[in-house]
């Protein structure tokens, strides 16, 4: 029962914040809505018996990745608004049609796969015995050890790649200065004229 309440509070919140993220013109607002979304999903992980993932979700996604997004948005000053008008006229109806189609397909797949009344059989507490983090560690460092190592290599490669890509050589022309929230810039011309 409690889980159902949690679901019906946080699922609409997650979907609404996801949609709000898409419809926002201001990139900073989009990022903030995505943070709300990640929090809602973290609560979902908690509900589904994944405490460790709850913490990882907040630390990595909300705490690091989204701050990185905000950092780039603020640094580039790309939070000025963006046109949301669709240039191709038939694309939107087609998209809606295909979306409905996929929804129907998912319904069919779920029905054929697990059935609408499928419930977790319970007893997941047994898997989580001794703590969820410990259970994950046990599997991660035995069965999934090679993927784990490969992931660490991937992260190092990504870090080096990001540095190589974004590194600016000394003496290169610096970009425009960071910019705050979208605001009118009234005095440019006046200054030039004056």
């Amino acid at each position, binding site marked *: 029962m409690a889980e159902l309440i949690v679901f019906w509070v946080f699922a609409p919140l997650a979907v609404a914040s996801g949609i709000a993220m898409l419809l926002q013109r201001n990139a900073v607002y989009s990022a903030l809505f995505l943070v709300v979304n990640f929090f809602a999903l973290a609560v979902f*992980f908690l509900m589904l018996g*994944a405490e*460790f993932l709850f913490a990882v979700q907040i630390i990595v996604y909300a705490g690091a*990745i989204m701050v990185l997004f905000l950092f780039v948005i603020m640094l580039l000053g790309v939070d000025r608004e963006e046109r949301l008008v669709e240039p191709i006229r038939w694309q939107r109806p087609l998209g809606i049609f295909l979306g409905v189609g996929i*929804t129907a397909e998912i319904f069919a797949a779920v029905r054929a796969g697990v059935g609408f009344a499928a419930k977790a059989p319970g007893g997941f507490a047994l898997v*989580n015995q001794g703590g969820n983090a410990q259970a994950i560690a046990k599997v991660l460092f035995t069965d999934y050890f090679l993927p784990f190592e490969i992931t660490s290599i991937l992260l190092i490669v990504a870090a080096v790649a990001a540095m190589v890509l974004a590194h600016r050589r000394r003496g290169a022309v610096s970009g425009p200065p960071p910019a705050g929230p979208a605001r009118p810039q009234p005095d440019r011309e006046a200054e030039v004229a004056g």
Partner: protein
Amino acid sequence: MIRLPLVLFFSAVLFSTGVYGVLARRNGVLVLMSIELMLNAVNVNLVAFSQYVRDIGGQVFALFVIAVAAAEVGIGLAIVILIFRNRESINVDEVSLLKW
């Protein structure tokens, strides 16, 4: 216990939202954010199925997805910064040339 299809539909809706964002938004940063949304929807599925089949492997997989997503964001944002430096804009529609 929550019924599994509820969670599945929920994550499907989230995933589709992400797909729409990738296709419709022109801001490069927002495209990356939509990809994050899609990955998260997948994570919800993985964790839900992990509970359903009583195997912790699903959660481990979700952990890998998060790690890979972190790497992807790092590189993606570096590319966005590079594009911005070259074109003074991060509109992905304008990045249609392979060379300039």
